[in-house]
């Protein structure tokens, strides 16, 4: 009996959190409208969420591209098909690695910071004092951070893929001697603007929405203690990673499954 009770308690708890999460998302979306009157708030958050993530995204994109260049070349040269390296690098970056790795890095770099910031605001009762002053924390704190994360992730993913293609070029053409012309022409011949690039952008938009939602919600919903904040931060990173990987599987099945 005790085991069943604990199972029931756990499932009800999960359902309750899910419900609160959706109500939270709904209230955040409603608060996005008034944000247009105060773009300054958004720009501040774009700086801390987007600009400060730029370095890690560019560096990781470069290295992921270079590793793809190496590994692709080592495999392809056995078949005498090293010319197709450009297509291999670009397709893997644009379709999968760009959106997914960017979302994972984003969860670690920006998502955790968002959760900790909002969680500390709650723990130090800044959110309650805002409410006392008739300032809606959804409009003043939550909405700008949410929107900044949603905007930043697709841009960061595009930068990641573009830098990665360059990294593959440095290694493949510069170091391993693949012909520069065939690197680009094979890439352009096999990457489709709508099927590959646009689907990658759609993926990163979905990931941006999910990562932003989880990060902001975990911060707002955390227990207002130092332990609660640290737990919420960990949960943000873990849940975002799991959600992104699971969603990526579903999205890939929907987008490329019928080929």
């Amino acid at each position: 009996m005790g085991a069943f009770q604990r199972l029931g308690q756990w499932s009800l708890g999960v359902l309750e959190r899910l419900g609160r999460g959706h109500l939270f998302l709904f209230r955040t979306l409603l608060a996005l409208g008034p944000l247009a009157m105060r773009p300054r708030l958004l720009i501040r958050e774009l700086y801390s969420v987007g600009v400060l993530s730029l370095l890690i995204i560019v560096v990781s994109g470069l290295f992921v591209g270079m590793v793809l260049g190496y590994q692709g070349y080592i495999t392809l040269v056995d078949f005498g098909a090293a010319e197709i390296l450009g297509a291999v690098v670009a397709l893997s970056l644009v379709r999968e690695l760009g959106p997914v790795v960017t979302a994972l890095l984003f969860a670690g770099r920006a998502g955790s910071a968002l959760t900790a910031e909002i969680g500390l605001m709650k723990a130090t009762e800044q959110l309650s004092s805002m409410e006392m002053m008739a300032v809606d924390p959804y409009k003043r704190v939550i909405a700008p951070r949410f929107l900044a994360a949603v905007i930043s992730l697709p841009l960061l993913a595009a930068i990641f893929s573009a830098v990665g293609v360059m990294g593959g070029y440095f290694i493949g053409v510069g170091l391993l001697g693949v012909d520069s012309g065939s690197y680009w022409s094979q890439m352009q011949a096999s990457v489709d603007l709508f099927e590959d690039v646009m689907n990658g952008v759609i993926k990163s938009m979905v990931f941006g929405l999910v990562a932003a939602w989880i990060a902001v919600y975990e911060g707002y919903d955390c227990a207002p203690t130092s332990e609660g904040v640290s737990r919420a931060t960990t949960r943000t990173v873990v849940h975002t990673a799991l959600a992104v990987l699971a969603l990526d599987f579903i999205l890939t099945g929907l987008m490329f499954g019928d080929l």
Partner: protein
Amino acid sequence: MTTRWIEITVGIFVALGLAGLFMLALQVSNLGEYRGGEGYEVHAHFNNIGGLKVRAPVTISGVRVGRVTDIRYDPQRYQARVTMNISAAHDYLPTDTQASIYTAGLLGEQYIALEPGGEEEVLADGDTILFTQSAVVLEELIGRMLVNMTSD
């Protein structure tokens, strides 16, 4: 950290992101092919198209002039009917142009090579190419070679 500095770096960030998107669209993907404008469509019937796929290139002397837009089976002729879109700039192909399916390299993709003939009239939208050469199927070649070897 002044507001001005924050705004400048955010501006640079957004510009970089858009530049990345543009690079993916223009440099990495096949956007260039969409710009070519509308072309005209011609059909060709093949006994065997091998591994030809939609979007495969159509070339003349190795120069890309169009792409395959549709492949279906024609139950009246018991042959595969391939529709290709040729860019409007190449409107000088004679009606007795020959279409052949070749393979780029040993393992490469298959493409259609056009060889212009000598007729005065040129192909127009909706015309059918009469002279075609099917894809070479490796198994058939080996089979024929084996038959030749045994008949000696």
